[in-house]
C-alpha cells in the first residue's frame, strides 16, 4: 500500500498547477463569479471556455479518454491530481454530457463514421451535448420510457417528450433513449440509443425553473422528428446496454470529492468571519462538530474513491461500486451546501438577481448560498436517485 505521489506525479501536479495559473482566463473567473453572486445563469461561453482551452492542450478536456481518440488517457493518480488542482483553483467544471457520457459510448459502441463525426467536437468543446433519458412518466423506472422511433426508409421518425434536459437551451445535439420495439418481451429490450441534432425540425424545448429560480433544465419535445438511421449507436434495440454503461460513467464523476473539499475550506473561512455569541462561528461547538463530521466523511470518501480508481487502473471500468460514490458524494455535497447557508445566518434570505432587485446586499461571501442549498436537493435525485443506487448495490454487489 502506497499512496505517496511519485516524482513523476509531483511533476505532473506542478505542470497542471502552472497550466491553470497561466491559462485560466481572469475574465472568465470574473464573469462567472459576478453571475453566481446574483444568481444569474451562466452563458454557453462561460460553460465551455475552459473546456475549449483544455481541448487544445493534449486532450486534457477528456482525462479518461484513450489517446487514440484524442483524450489525455491519464492514469488514475493523474486523474485524481487533475481534479484536485482544478477544484483548488475553482475552475469551471466541464459539462459532463459530451466528455463523460456520450463520448465514451461513441468510442466504445459507435462506428468509425460516428467517431469521426462526433468525437472531435466533444473533445474541443465546440459542440454542446445534452441528455435525453428521463421522461415525464419515466424517472427512476427509466426503462418504461415511451418516446418512439419508427423506422421509415433511411430515417427514424421520433415522437415523444423528454424532461430534465440539462442545458438543452445551449445544446447542439442530444443523445436519446428511444423505443424502437414496443412489442419486446421486456421493456429494456426494445430501446435504442439515438443521436439527434437539436436543429432538426420538430425539436422544441421549454425551460423548467428550479426552486432557486435557476434555469438549468428543460422539457424537450419531439414531433415527427426525422433522424437519419446513421445516427443509431450500435445495434437497434440494444440501447439499454449502452445506457447502463453510460450511467456507470456518469456516477463515477459525481462524487465531487475535490470540490466538496474546497467548499468546506470556504465554509471555514466564512465561519471565521461570522460571529455568534460574540465569538467567531467557527468556535461554536455545535457548528464546529458539523464541519468536522463532514470532513471525516469526505476523508473517508476520498480514500473510497482512490481505492476505486486504483481498481479501475487494473483495467476494469467503473462498476456498480460507483453507486456508493454517488450516494456518499451527494450526501456530502448536500451537507456542505446546507452548512454554507447556515453559516451566513440572516443573509441566507436575500434572493438577488431577480427582476425585482439587481443590487448586492450583505457580505460578498453570503450571496446565493441558500439558492445553492435549494438547488442541490437535486443531487440525491439525479443520475438515478440515491434509493435507486441502493437497489443497484443490493442487486449487483450484495447479490440480493
Amino acid at each position, binding site marked *: 500500500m*502506497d499512496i505517496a505521489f511519485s516524482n513523476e506525479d509531483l511533476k505532473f501536479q506542478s505542470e497542471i498547477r502552472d497550466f491553470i495559473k497561466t491559462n485560466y482566463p481572469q475574465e472568465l473567473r470574473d464573469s462567472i463569479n459576478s453571475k453566481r453572486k446574483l444568481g444569474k445563469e451562466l452563458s454557453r461561453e462561460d460553460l465551455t471556455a475552459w473546456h475549449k482551452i483544455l481541448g487544445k492542450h493534449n486532450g486534457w478536456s477528456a482525462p479518461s479518454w484513450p489517446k487514440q481518440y484524442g483524450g489525455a488517457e491519464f492514469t488514475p493518480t493523474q486523474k485524481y491530481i487533475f481534479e484536485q488542482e482544478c477544484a483548488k483553483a475553482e475552475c469551471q467544471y466541464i459539462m459532463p454530457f459530451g466528455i463523460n457520457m456520450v463520448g465514451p459510448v461513441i468510442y466504445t459502441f459507435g462506428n468509425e463514421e460516428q467517431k469521426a463525426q462526433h468525437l472531435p467536437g466533444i473533445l474541443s468543446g465546440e459542440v454542446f451535448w445534452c441528455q435525453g433519458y428521463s421522461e415525464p412518466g419515466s424517472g427512476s423506472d427509466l426503462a418504461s420510457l415511451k418516446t418512439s422511433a419508427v423506422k421509415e426508409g433511411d430515417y427514424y421518425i421520433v415522437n415523444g417528450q423528454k424532461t430534465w434536459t440539462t442545458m438543452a437551451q445551449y445544446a447542439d445535439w442530444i443523445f436519446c433513449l428511444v423505443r424502437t420495439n414496443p412489442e419486446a418481451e421486456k421493456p429494456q429490450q426494445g430501446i435504442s440509443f439515438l443521436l439527434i441534432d437539436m436543429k432538426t425540425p420538430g425539436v422544441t424545448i421549454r425551460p423548467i425553473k428550479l426552486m432557486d429560480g435557476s434555469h438549468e433544465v428543460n422539457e424537450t419535445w419531439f414531433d415527427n422528428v426525422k433522424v437519419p438511421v446513421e445516427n443509431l449507436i450500435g445495434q437497434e434495440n440494444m440501447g439499454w446496454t449502452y445506457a447502463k454503461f453510460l450511467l456507470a460513467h456518469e456516477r463515477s464523476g459525481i462524487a465531487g470529492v475535490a470540490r466538496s473539499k474546497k467548499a468546506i475550506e470556504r465554509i471555514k473561512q466564512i465561519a471565521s468571519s461570522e460571529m455568534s455569541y460574540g465569538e467567531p462561528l467557527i468556535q461554536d461547538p455545535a457548528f464546529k462538530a458539523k464541519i468536522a463530521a463532514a470532513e471525516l466523511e469526505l476523508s473517508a470518501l476520498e480514500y473510497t474513491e482512490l481505492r476505486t480508481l486504483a481498481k479501475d487502473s487494473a483495467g476494469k471500468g467503473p462498476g456498480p461500486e460507483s453507486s456508493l460514490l454517488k450516494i456518499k458524494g451527494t450526501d456530502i455535497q448536500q451537507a456542505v451546501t446546507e452548512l454554507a447557508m447556515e453559516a451566513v445566518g440572516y443573509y441566507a434570505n436575500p434572493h438577488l438577481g431577480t427582476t425585482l432587485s439587481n443590487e448586492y446586499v450583505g457580505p460578498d461571501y453570503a450571496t446565493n448560498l441558500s439558492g445553492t442549498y435549494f438547488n442541490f436537493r437535486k443531487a440525491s435525485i439525479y443520475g438515478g436517485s440515491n434509493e435507486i443506487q441502493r437497489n443497484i448495490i443490493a442487486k449487483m454487489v450484495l447479490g440480493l
Partner: protein
Amino acid sequence: MNFDYTEEQTLLDNMVTSFVRDNYDWDTRCNIVKSEEGWKAENWKQFAELGLLGVPFDEAYGGLGGKSTDLMIVMEQFGKGLVVEPYLPTVILAGGLISKLGTEEQKNSIIPEIISGNIRCAFAYAEPQSRFDLNDVKTSAVLNGDDYVLNGFKSVVFGAGMASHLIISARTDGDQRSESGITLFIVDTKSEGLTLQNYPTIDEYRASEVIIENLKVSKDNVLGKVNMAYDAIEEIVDISTIAACSEAVGILQVLKDSTTEYCKNRKQFGQSIAKNQVIQHRLVDMMIEYEQAKSILYMAVTADLSSSDERKKVVSAAKARIGKAIKFVGESAIQLHGGMGVVDEYMVSHYFKRATMIGVLFGNTDYHMKRYMTLTQSGISSSDEAISVSVT
C-alpha cells in the same frame, strides 16, 4: 498509488488468515473465553513460531521491522476471528513503549522475550478519574534512595492478568493533569505492593484493576526519561488506536457479510427477508459504512505517522469515523438478525460486543471528534484566514 499488499504482506495476511481458520473455530473460541485463564498458551506459542510476536519490532532485536500496514493486516484478521490473546496489549502497546523509550539494556532483555513468547506485558495507564485523558495521572511515584515508591490505582488494564510485566504510568512531578511530570516504570506483576483484581469484560476479554500500595521500583526500571513520558505515551496509544481500528474493520466485515447471508436465508411471509427493499437498503448502508471505515483506516495507515501533527489528526479522524460505523453496522446487524441477534449462543452478538468495546478503547467517538476538531480548526480564525466582510 496502489492499495495492494506487497508479497511479504500477502504472505503475512495468508498466514494470519489460516491461523484463525485452523485454530479459532467458534467452539474453540468459546472454550478459550470460558477457561480460567481466558487465553490459550498454545496459541501464543504458535504466534511466536509464526513470527507474529515480532512483527513491529526492530530487526536488531529479532523482530520483523514491520510497519503500520503489517500491524493492520494482523489485527484485521484477528478481528475476523475475535482472537482474545493479548496481542494488542503486549506487542503493540507495551512493546511499542519499550521500543520507543527503552535503554539498549532494557530492549535487549525484554523484546526478545516478547518475540519468543516467553513473556507478556500490559500497560497500566487509565485511572478511575482519568477517563480517556492520558495526561490525567494521580498515581504517584516518589524517589526514596535508589527506589521509587509508587502508590495509586489503575483501571481496566487489558491483559494484565496474563502478563509477567506491567508498565505503569505515574506522576513524578506536576499537577494531576500536567503533561510533564509523567514517568513510566516496568514492574514484575508479582511484585509486592501490586494487587491485581482480574475480571472478564463484557466482550469476553480479560482486564484488571491494579491497586498499587507502596510498590518499590528500582531506578533502573524507569522506562525513558523521568517526567518526560507523555509524548511517547500519546504516540504509542495512537499507533495502538490504529491497530484497534484495524481489528474493528475486520469485525465490521464479518458483521456485514454474515448479516447479508442471514437475510438471504431467513424466510418470512414465504420469501427471503432480503427481498424486502427496507432490508436491502439497510444492508447497503451497512456496506457503505464498512467501506467508509476501511477507507479512513487506509488513510491513517498510509499517512506520514512520523509527523506528530499528522499522526494525531489521522488517528482521531479514523477512530471517530470508525466509531460511527461500529455503531451503525453493529446495531443494524443485531436488528436484522432479529431474535437470533440478541442471544448469546449465536456469533453475531459477540462480534457486536467486541466492536462496541473497541469503540470505547483509547477514547470514544466524541472524544476523538473533539481532538480532531482541536487539531484542525482551532487556528482557523486567525485574521489571515478570515474573509474580510464587505457590505455594500
